[in-house]
């Protein structure tokens, strides 16, 4: 994989993982 591929892969995964983990933790704290 080229470096620009790694960047897009990393950024996309980071955004999705951050959103998933952040929202899940906030939800579980309030459930």
């Amino acid at each position: 994989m080229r470096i620009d591929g790694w960047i897009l892969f990393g950024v996309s995964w980071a955004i999705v993982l951050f959103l998933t983990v952040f929202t899940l933790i906030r939800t579980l704290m309030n459930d």
Partner: protein
Amino acid sequence: MAGLQRERWKSKMGVILAVAGSAVGLGNFLRFPAKATANGGGAFMIPYLLAFLLLGIPLIWIEWSIGRRGGQYGHGTAPGIFASLWKHPLAKYLGSIGILGPFIILIYYTYIESWTLGYAYYSFTGHLFDAADQNQMKSFLAAYQGIEHNQFFSGIRSAYIFFVITFVLNFALISYGIRSGIERLSKIAMPILVFIGIILAGRVLTVDPADVSTQGRTVNDALGFVWNPDFARLLDAKVWLEAAGQIFFTLSVGIGVILTYASYLRKDDDVALSGLTAGSMNEFCEVILGGSIVIPAAFLFFGAQGARDVAGGGTFNLGFVTMPLIFHKMAFGQLFCGLWFILLFLAGITSSVSLIQPMMSFLQDEFGMAQKRSVILVGLIAFAASNLAVFFLAHGFLDELDFWGGTVFLVVFATFETILFGWIHGIDNAWKELESGSLLRVPRFYRYVIKYITPTFLITLLIVWSYQQFWPTLMMSSVAQADRPYVWGARIMVFSMLGITLFLIRIIWSRTKGRVDHAD
């Protein structure tokens, strides 16, 4: 109907998993990776993530907000919800497609879902692995569907048995209601689905480069095939539309199911954080899991050209022909193939139960029908209609239902609800609705996104899709002459159902005039 106590979700996580389950479907694992690969690879993620922020998240929040609001007035479906937002006689009729759309999708979706159950069974028994190459695997699928008679199946009997099992299972689950049926199913199925997804992604991403089947292709090459960007493709408007379309379809917005699910929330329940959590879970299943299984595996075992052909060969081909062939080449392939189809089945059943609920809710809320009776009535009508999709599959009947229920109605419905919420109900009221009980500080710029950007996005999609798809499909330009009567049949069925839905709305509103103003 007034007087009937509406059910409520047992927990926040329960409703989130139910909405996420509704959104996560076959498209997360099949449609997304194929679209990304065919539309610029990693570059596709730029319009995709922008569409998630500007189209997906606002629509999620709109549907959760108006759904919860409708529930306070005793309405779980769009006619009542729209009427509560806009005091105009037309409002309730605009909501008709929020009941009909999911029902039309249900008619064919349970049949496709049943294929995954059948294929899981034939993976574990080894019968699926009797087909050893692309042509044989295609013959297996065609014979299973009853389109061909060959050495694999002599008729549609097996497919029909799995269809009946799937159909009965769906309605049996629904008969237990929101808490004991849908919520319990989602709490069990979603973690298993994610677990299987991680196992399969892990299996693909750890394929040994020394494996003879991969002919020296590495996982790094496979990820590069999916993610290496072609930025020049971003100049093509089609790529942006494909990204917006994918976000639209993957999040289950515009169907009417989120409205219904959210109507079982309490008045002070949060919608902003819950909606975002459900949407994020869907993105996890799509980008992280969906992006790591099918296309990287196709590249590893079939090379760049093979994977490109696979990506362009259609969703069913990808799921039911290519993937079994890939597992055929892996160690413990039968086991992984079985897991793959169980994953798709779980993704399917959590979606199909959500498609049943709007019609159930309509009959229960507006006509005061009891749970058991509504299950039997909806089940019988859906079963009769589904049989047409089963037996006329080869004649384009299913495609026509998908065109109306799965495409046209979605975009039209989403446009209606966005305008009603942001403009007619008014952005100040809409914002109050969204922030009420919120466990998340919603960025203020979303006021402008909901009012201006999301409707603009939707109207653009509506215009372009009308131009690209509506007229050619309406004119049956790619339908063979012999299949046209079947397509006409599907069309007549859809519009007869629309007529009946409008008539039922008229009856109930003439009986209970003004009830919309009375909150629980």
